[in-house]
């Protein structure tokens, strides 16, 4: 399946673009997507934390991804 991943903050800088389109096996779990991205962009491993959001909610590593999901990579937040 094709996934679009929105990127923000330092993750956007590391990847060098605000949106990533990748091809992944159907029903890929979040943790495998993260591992795939960390392999492709090793600087992501240097972050204090890296989460995945699916449809505006933080996702567990075991959550399965679907093609229509709104996916985003969430580096350490610093609001307030």
């Amino acid at each position, binding site marked *: 399946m094709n996934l679009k991943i*929105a990127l*923000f*903050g*330092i993750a956007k*800088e590391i990847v060098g673009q605000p949106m990533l389109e990748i091809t992944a096996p159907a029903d890929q779990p979040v943790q495998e997507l993260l591992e795939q991205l960390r392999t492709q962009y090793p600087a992501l491993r*240097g*972050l*204090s934390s890296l989460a995945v*959001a699916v449809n*505006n*909610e*933080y996702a567990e590593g075991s959550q399965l991804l679907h093609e229509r999901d*709104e996916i*985003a990579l*969430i*580096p*350490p*937040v*610093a*609001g*307030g």
Partner: protein
Amino acid sequence: MITIDLTDQPIDVAATLELVQSDGAGAVNTFIGTVRNKSTGRPVVRLEYEAYDSMALHQLRKVADQAKEQWPMLEKVAVIHRKGTLQIGDVAVVVAVSTPHRAESFAACQYIIDTLKQVVTIWKKEFYEDGDVWVAAHP
């Protein structure tokens, strides 16, 4: 009543306070976060906040809803966060809550700002004379 906003315009603090006024609430607690002129001892010249808007608004509302669950006597809540470029002294965030009695107003307001900082998808880049840093990005 819960008001949530994420804006690239200057925050009107007085208007935000009016949002939580209520004849049944004797106590209003407000937290205002402003841009400091230094960060861990290093002079800051400006800030930039970037937001994942839809998720930030969704998470802000969840935080406010959780506060309302934990303190059912909460009358009104307003949380306004700024994004874009901010100068020293600019208001970055305002949290205002009203309750019948004061202890709950302090507890609920502090819960909201503490939780906001943990979960809301907003990122802060600090600019110094000689460089910039994404705050909290690295260990």
